[in-house]
């Protein structure tokens, strides 16, 4: 059972990564325009300038 010493922190760490990613996506308003994002992927124009807020 000694392996738990590694496994528990690892599982918590991985969970933490997921949570951080979720936090980032909310903070960056990734869910603001789901319909538009679904369509934008079909566009030939690349939107690589940072959004000017």
């Amino acid at each position, binding site marked *: *059972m000694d392996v*738990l010493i590694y496994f*528990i922190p690892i*599982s*918590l760490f991985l*969970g933490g990564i*997921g*949570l951080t990613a*979720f*936090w980032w996506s*909310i903070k960056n*308003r990734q*869910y*603001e*325009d*789901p*319909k*538009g994002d679904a*369509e*934008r*992927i*079909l*566009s*030939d*124009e690349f939107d690589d300038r940072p*959004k*000017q807020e």
Partner: protein
Amino acid sequence: MTVSPAPSNANTYEEERVSASACPACLAAPSAEQLAKSGDIKGARIMLSLPTAHCAVCITDVERELMKQPGVKSARVNLTLKRASVDAETGVEPAGLIAALDKIGYESHELDAGMLSATEADKRGRDLLMRIGVAGFAMMNIMLLSVAVWSGAQDATRDLFHWVSAAIAIPTIIFSGQPFFASAYYSLRGGRLGMDVPISLAILLALGISLFETMHSGAHAYFEAATMLTFFLLVGRYLDYRTRAVARSAAEELAALEVPRATILRDGVEVVVPVGELVVGDLMRVRPGGRIPADGEVIEGHSESDRSLLTGESLPVQVGPGMVLSAGEVNLTGPLMIRVTAAGKDSSLHRMADLVAMAESAKTKYTSLAERAARAYAPIVHILSFTAFCAWAWVTGGDFRLAVNIAAAVLIITCPCALGLAVPAVVTAASGKLFRKGLLIKDGTALERLAEIDTVVFDKTGTLTMGAPRPQNLSDLSPKALSVAMALAEGSSHPLARALHQAALGQGATAAALEDIREVPGYGVEGHWQGQIVRMGRANWIGAEEGASTATHLKIGDEAPVSIRFVDSLRPGAEEAVAGLVAQGKSVWLVSGDVEAAVADLAARLGITQFRAGALPMEKAQLVADLTHEGHRVLMVGDGLNDTAALAGAHVSVSPASALDAARTASDIVLLGQDLAPIAEAARIAKHARRRIKQNFAISIVYNAVAVPLALMGLATPLMAALAMSASSITVSLNSLRLR
């Protein structure tokens, strides 16, 4: 003339507004006055509504075109909201951008950016989502550890797992449980026992008992149950919030479309001011086609005024100096100069708002199914759990640890996971469905109330009809007369003239060559044709006899005048809506302020047997009140100011998007498209939704009926609690998705 608005006046006005809009519906759609205040602040950000945008090409086209405009720094289309937000240098006019988009074939409208900022920063929604995320991740991690415990982890390993679970659960509950704790605190302080009290109690008790057991190396801990409870309940909360937020943002957009401003003369200069800043004595200039912003007396100019939104009468009224006009009328033909006689709380618009407030307060507050469930549920749960505690403490002779454990298990198992999802999941599914059909539900309980109606009252002008006239007897005209009439109609922007021109074009007529065409505001159009004077317009101007229906009259030289009669065209879907409602067994009424003949004619066309003509606003409200008194549940469909009191007094109300702001505010459901047919469909969907909600309640009761006795007997384990909770929540959600 007062140059600056008196601050005291503005203040009392504001207070009046607040009291008048003390209804939930008014919060959804801000009033014109509030709009007016945020009025001319035109920052660097311009918002445009793009009703026709729907694809990837639309996005690129619109963004590229906007970026090409001088002064535009960035443009971004939001397809979900069908809006474009443009960052531009000051001085860039929305009108220019709209014209540019129009050129490439996209319809767009200016939106009041100040009004919409509230929706933009959707803080509450993101906040809830974050709490859901945290609760979800904690739930999964704890479950991982709990599965190990349930499959047989012993002694030190079990204790370690419980401690790790505690370390995850405690901060999670503190963060994610806040919405429940806050609302439970408020309801306790208000002396009520809401749904959130047992929820908070269950979460906190589960957490406390688990921590205690963990400290004493106990076998059972409910950490996963506590986080799961929080997670599922937050999902229900979020669905509920989303439905309301979507409705609010769409309602806000409707309100933001009409920016209420008035053009007034100050020291001989024309300035545009928000309507809220008008004071008595101001001189307003109203152009043809413009809506009159405040009550006033005509000083200068002749025109005709369309009062259909206020009174329901379809015939325009002749207007000249000395006449008093009310806010909300539409000026049709000539420019008018009007002196403001009443602004703010004295205006007829505001008196109408008072009427609405009265009707609102007279209406008993509707208790939704969820509220009724919570009211019955909260005491039962508390009593059950307390009884379990007492009974077990007595049976075991004072084993309080066991008694508290069982009481907590009862609370956790009865906790309304499925009950919390039962209503929001169905309402979300139903309002999404209705939204796609063009109906916007402004109020969460509107759907339930719509399911109960048995009587439908329709307004005529602007609701069942388009408020747009169509010539009826063009075939009576000789080809010569038709071509002259068409040529004269070209010279005017009057709705009748435009309709006549359109219809003549449709018949393939060509306009006669006329000279010196000029419009005589308030009377009609005249010109010269082959050396004769030709005139078209009001009966008394032409020398014709006045008829009962809407008509214009044509006179060529010395010939006898010819009348061209108009009928109001039906709104698309009106026949289907009425037929559909009748088929569902509802009794349908038609009420209008218009003359008897016009109302009876329309009623006959639509197959409506019960109608009332010449009804004043108060009489409309009275009819609704009488029907309600007889035990009917009334759905009122109306668009005008004269309907507002009836709309507010009805069990549930619908208004088209073209309705006046006040009417939209007073109604629970807004019809976004032109088509009326969705109303019958909505009544059907609402009934279905209500059935689903009741089924959901039944499902969660069944789960409780099985699990509660086990919990009371002390046989419930954390595994069972987790299973019952997730299984009931998932069945309820799936059942809601079956809505058709």
